[in-house]
């Protein structure tokens, strides 16, 4: 509960910041909307329609009021309501982000466990090299190379677009690769940490099968930092989605946003940035709540120490 309350000032701050940032973008939105060739009178009218003649606090008040009513304005480019535009695009970005999160978690945790149980073996070394490579690879470049290999050369998967499950494979792999590397490294070090502890020695000395020790005892305890990392990766993934969508012509929020930035479409930029940020905040909140489930020792009642 307390966590939920703490998110409110953050969201309020985010709204102020987004509002301020949009006002800071040079160039008058009224001119952008009315067109370069519009006469002064028409521009003035658009200015008044947009409320740009009022004071900044008044404009913020209007903005916040609209926001709470779910009114995000209309795209100055397509004329469609921003909310509808976002509602159409968001699930597609969600689909991509979730799929790549699935890739990152499944591959990362599996590789991390294998590495930690065969510490310093060739498998461990290879796994960690691959993880490092995944982290250092620019997401858009990896996407292009996968396209080149699997679409142009082998013809296994479509290079661009969205629709069937095969369309999702390359973008999800591309976006998930870096996070998979990070998750793998985190899982490995967290597992190694846990496997050293006394209760693992106890479990082993009780004669439990190694499989039970690793999966039942160690893994559950090692997952806490991993969950944090996965949660934080959502921010990276949402940011990376902008690039991945551009590479694969995936019609999601990222491409909408890039297009809006290049076209100076303020309402869409504003709405898109807000939506992505609120999503990130919500996911981190969910992660915080998940801790309590994973680790009963954590209770959000008193003010804890430094995290």
């Amino acid at each position, binding site marked *: 509960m307390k966590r939920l309350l703490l998110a409110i*000032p953050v969201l309020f701050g985010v709204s102020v910041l987004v509002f301020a940032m949009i006002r800071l973008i040079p160039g008058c939105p009224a001119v952008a909307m009315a067109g370069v060739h519009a006469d002064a009178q028409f521009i003035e009218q658009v200015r008044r329609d947009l409320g740009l003649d009022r004071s900044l606090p008044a404009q913020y008040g209007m903005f916040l009021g609209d926001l709470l009513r779910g009114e995000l304005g209309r795209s100055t480019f397509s004329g469609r309501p921003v909310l509808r535009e976002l509602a159409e695009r968001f699930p597609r970005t969600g689909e991509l982000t979730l799929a790549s999160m699935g890739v990152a978690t499944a591959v990362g945790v599996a590789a991390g466990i294998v590495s930690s149980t065969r510490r310093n073996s060739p498998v461990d070394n290879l796994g960690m090299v691959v993880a490092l490579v995944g982290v250092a690879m620019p997401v*858009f470049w990896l996407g292009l190379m996968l396209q080149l290999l699997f679409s142009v050369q082998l013809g296994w998967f479509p290079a661009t677009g969205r629709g069937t499950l095969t369309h999702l494979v390359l973008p999800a792999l591309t976006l998930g690769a870096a996070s998979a590397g990070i998750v793998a490294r985190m899982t490995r070090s967290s597992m190694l940490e846990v496997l050293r502890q006394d209760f693992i020695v106890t479990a082993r000395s009780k004669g439990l099968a190694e499989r039970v020790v690793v999966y039942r005892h160690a893994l559950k305890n090692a997952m806490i930092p991993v969950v944090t990392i996965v949660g934080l990766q959502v921010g990276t993934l949402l940011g990376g989605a902008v690039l991945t969508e551009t590479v694969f012509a995936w019609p999601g929020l990222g491409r909408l946003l890039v297009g809006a930035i290049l076209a100076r479409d303020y309402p869409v930029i504003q709405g898109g940035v807000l939506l992505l940020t609120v999503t990130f905040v919500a996911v981190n909140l969910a992660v915080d709540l998940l801790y309590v489930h994973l680790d009963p020792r954590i209770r959000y009642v008193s003010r804890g120490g430094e995290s």
Partner: protein
Amino acid sequence: MKGNGTAKQAPAPTPTRLALRSLRRNRAAMLGLAVVLIFSLAAALAPMLGLPDPYQASLAQALEAPSREHPFGRDELGRDLFSRVVHGARISLTLGLIAMAIGAAVGVPVGALSGYWGGRFDLIVQRLVDIILAFPGTLLAIVVVTILGVGLDNVMIAIGIASIPTYVRLARGSVLSIKEIGYVAAARAVGGGDGRIVFRHILPNCLGPLIVQSTFQIATAILWAAGLGFLGLGAQAPTPEWGTMLSRGRLYMRVAPHLTAYPGLAIFAVVLGFNLLGDGLRDALDPRLRKV
């Protein structure tokens, strides 16, 4: 693994020397250092290497495949790709360094004072950091570039700004962890001012994590800048910036894949180099990790 320091014939090893020795024994870190050095040298010496002019177009030979004279081939305007990639190192490394420096120059003092003073200042700074960290990092950089306008300088500033919160958190945490140690109290008792205590006595002892973070930060900055260039928000057309080159090159990916392959490989290599070095530095500077 414990036999690390058995032969103690060396005269009292200082912590720095211990760290350096550990770093030198770390093969991955040495590889990273080598990569970073090669790219730094290429960046510093690019105009003196006798390479073809990276801007000299030669349309007749556009998209030429790699050959002995042109090891990376030619780009869509017939410019020598190897020369462009080498000159790109100059751009990317400078950018990475400056963006990192902006983040550290603002973030470290603010974070350090925030940790040292505590109280209301700390509260305000931390809430601000919370708000900025609520934005996915790349997204924040994109938005700041939109505000400042497209271009290389602005990319540098945007990425610098986006990395401030990381430094604030790190510096604050480090200061909190050592400000109660005796020697700080001693410095205070002697009558040292806050600024003097923080910057002369506390921060020098937090350098380890800051150096490690900065190494990673350069890698991140290079990666993000290339991403912004790829989106068309960074360096503009003729500039041999790796991300910008990639976004042009992908148009010819089917006929001339070398246009996309080499600039990307360069980004990958330099980022990997900094990451390996950063990992090694972290292990070397943290006595608890210094085994194995």
